[in-house]
């Protein structure tokens, strides 16, 4: 299998008044075609920034992005337009990701129109096809977003992302704003589409049960850094990083007899502004020791299982 996307040492810093905010710091990963990489972490850990930087919606500060084997870190405007037809995004909030003054069909047709590759009639029929693909009834063509519920709105967003037949889609918490019953429908739709079209997903979420359901690999982020990355099953079976352990202990288990130990994190969250080198989780980590002040390197501890914690063997 080929890696469709490879990200090396990607960094995204924001300049703010009090210094540099390290939103994404030295993140490295790769995804094979047709697979899903889940990205989990708490709010503000840089998950969304990571997705947007990969898509060039934000400019990267440092690092490299390879798409289909080609270095696309710095591309000119013309190349970027081509690239964006191959890489798309589905947004978190279906209420703010749709222009309230554009009808369903106008929204879905926009990427087709902008690509300049299709005639008017073709755009019309492609729009109809797309609406059918994502399960939107044809009678909704001329409705406006405010008339529709969250699930239908999210389907519009998916149709828009699919319009130009991309290979790779960043899903930025696509179901977290939806009701649980609708969440399942949208997740199923996304999985069906992935099978049929050989799509590759980066699936950003804070919902662990969702990510477990949909991902092949999972990477756990904390304060802009990747602390652990492993195949999905392995991660849930054998979490190694103290932060991952705490995170997973928060997943409810549907078994009243099984008493699970809940790891409650204490301590202060490190500021992502001008952070010191070393483990950013150390201040909240119950296993923190002296060596944690040194930078933690991501090392492969078992095949496919990467970890940025030097004490993992001692803490088990």
């Amino acid at each position, binding site marked *: 299998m080929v890696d469709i996307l490879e990200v090396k040492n990607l960094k995204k810093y924001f300049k703010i008044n009090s210094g540099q905010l390290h939103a994404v710091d030295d993140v490295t990963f790769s995804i094979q075609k047709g697979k899903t990489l889940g990205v989990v972490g708490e709010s503000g850990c840089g998950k969304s920034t990571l997705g947007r930087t990969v898509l060039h919606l934000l400019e990267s500060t440092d690092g490299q992005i390879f798409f289909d084997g080609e270095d696309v870190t710095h591309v000119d405007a013309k190349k970027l337009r081509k690239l964006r037809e191959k890489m798309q995004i589905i947004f978190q909030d279906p209420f703010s990701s749709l222009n309230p*003054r554009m009808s369903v069909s106008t929204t879905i047709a926009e990427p087709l129109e902008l690509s300049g590759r299709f005639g008017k009639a073709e755009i019309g029929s492609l729009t109809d096809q797309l609406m059918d693909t994502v399960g939107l009834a044809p009678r909704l063509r001329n*409705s406006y977003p405010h008339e529709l519920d969250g699930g239908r709105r999210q389907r519009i967003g998916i149709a828009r992302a699919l319009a130009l037949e991309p290979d790779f889609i960043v899903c930025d918490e696509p179901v977290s704003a939806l009701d649980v019953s609708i969440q399942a429908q949208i997740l199923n739709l996304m999985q069906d589409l992935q099978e049929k079209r050989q799509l590759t997903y980066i699936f950003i979420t804070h919902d662990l049960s969702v990510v477990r359901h949909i991902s092949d690999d999972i990477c756990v982020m904390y304060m802009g850094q990747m602390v652990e990355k492993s195949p999905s099953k392995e991660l849930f079976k054998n979490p190694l990083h103290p932060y991952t352990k705490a995170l997973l202990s928060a997943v409810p288990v549907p078994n009243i007899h099984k008493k699970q130990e809940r790891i409650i994190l204490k301590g202060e969250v490190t500021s992502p502004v001008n952070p010191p080198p070393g483990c950013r989780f150390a201040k909240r980590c119950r296993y923190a020791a002296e060596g944690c002040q040194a930078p933690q390197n991501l090392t492969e501890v078992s095949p496919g299982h990467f970890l940025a914690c030097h004490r993992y063997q001692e803490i088990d």
Partner: protein
Amino acid sequence: MARKTAKKGKGAPANAGKKESMLALTWKQLIRNKMAVAGLILIGVMAILAILAPVIAPYAYDKQDLYHTFLGPCREHWFGTDNLGRDIFSRILYGARYSLSIGIAAVAMSLVAGVSLGALCGFYGGKLDMILMRVLDVFQSIPGMLMAIAVSATLGPGLRNCIIALSISSVPGYARMMRASMLNIRDMEYVEAARSVNARDGRIIFRHMIPNAMAPTIVQATMGVATAILVAASLSFIGLGVQPPAPEWGAMLADGRNYIRDFPHLVMFPGIAIMLAVLSLNMLGDGLRDALDPRLKN
């Protein structure tokens, strides 16, 4: 397929299949509002009267009749005559042409300038925003009235210069308002979505952002027409606006003020005309604000 079809959808749309533009929706919402309709009718009637003034007016607006000065309202002169024996009713009809066109033209000009400046500042931000906004600050630091006086004093009195003076003084207000709503919208995900499907800046600004940012500015503009009429009246009042014998309403007020004790109808009728124009535009503006608010839809 069955799995994909949403079955639990809540709001099935009412307008299935029928194309309804946002404009039509806004219009529908607007005519439901009684006050707005009243305002619309009132301003409409005034506009028609202004257009048909030569047909309706019983006298020429500058025809003097020195034997019949200061007549009160009577059968021949519905609103009476002024100090030179001119028919006040005819003058008010003709005056509507000046006052309404000054109001609308001044607002249209400042709206175009203000919206484009504000949209540019709000969208691009950075140095451009900084420089343009500071320039507008300078403009805004001068009271609007004073600004209008200064400009018309420089350009010289007259209808066209009066319009220019009025529009310059209200550009910063519109620009600032537009900039604020653009800043709000700039971070909306649909703007990012447009960018991700390769929309260029121009398209994002005109297609996605301005339509969504316009609502407060449109409302401000309808109120602005009323303000412009009032300021134009003040300009005429101090002799810098439309020049006599042109029957601009403010000028008529100014002329009549010397006789207000003995013949109050000289100022009363133009005053009422101004009041009705302002009132109707304010009612329309209020209604528009509600009609353009998507939260109040349906």
